[in-house]
């Protein structure tokens, strides 16, 4: 094979060649695509007092127009949220025509928000996608799906959930 890499195209060699011809270019630095590894955290951290954290979350949910199930005694640190997520219909709405909402598409997203204690005064708030609900079947339990069907249903898009999570995190960040 006579496949080769062109030596004059290697960045260091090209730079040396250019600086030799134009010394003033010695100051131009290459774009450092700094590989600063994105640091990922689970959920969001909080050092505030647990009840304050919960209060902040309920306030943020209220500001964003979300609903939640009244917390039960034994599940004080879990919030079952329901969020109306009706994206703008793609088609331009004709003048005067009332917004056609496609009834078959569920537009109530459910999310579970849970507070965990990692160590004394170090808490973690986690968000979990909890399925969709359409406004008609109010609070009806999702039919239990068997494993095979679960395999099928696994093709869901996380983007609406991620989008609402960003809105909630921004609301919390702005409030705090």
């Amino acid at each position: 094979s006579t496949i080769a890499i062109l030596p004059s195209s290697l960045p260091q060699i090209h730079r040396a060649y250019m600086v030799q011809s134009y010394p003033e270019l010695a100051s131009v630095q290459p774009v450092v695509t700094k590989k600063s590894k994105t640091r990922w955290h689970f959920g969001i951290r909080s050092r505030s007092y647990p009840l304050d954290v919960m209060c902040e979350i309920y306030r943020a949910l209220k500001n964003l127009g979300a609903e939640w199930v009244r917390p039960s005694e034994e599940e004080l640190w879990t919030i079952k949220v329901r969020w109306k997520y009706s994206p703008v219909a793609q088609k331009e709405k004709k003048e005067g025509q009332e917004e056609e909402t496609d009834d078959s598409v569920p537009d109530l997203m459910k999310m579970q928000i849970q507070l965990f204690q990692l160590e004394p005064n170090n808490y973690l708030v986690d968000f979990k996608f909890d399925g969709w609900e359409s406004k008609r079947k109010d609070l009806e339990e999702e039919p239990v799906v068997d494993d095979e069907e679960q395999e099928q249903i696994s093709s869901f898009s996380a983007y609406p959930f991620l989008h609402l999570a960003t809105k909630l995190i921004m609301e919390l960040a702005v409030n705090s």
Partner: protein
Amino acid sequence: LATTSIKHNTLAVASVIRYKRKYVTQILYAPL
């Protein structure tokens, strides 16, 4: 949910989902 600290007014969130028999870490970058 996985999150990054907010930098340059941008927030990144991610969640690992199962798509058929494979696993996708879907990462969304959004402006504050």
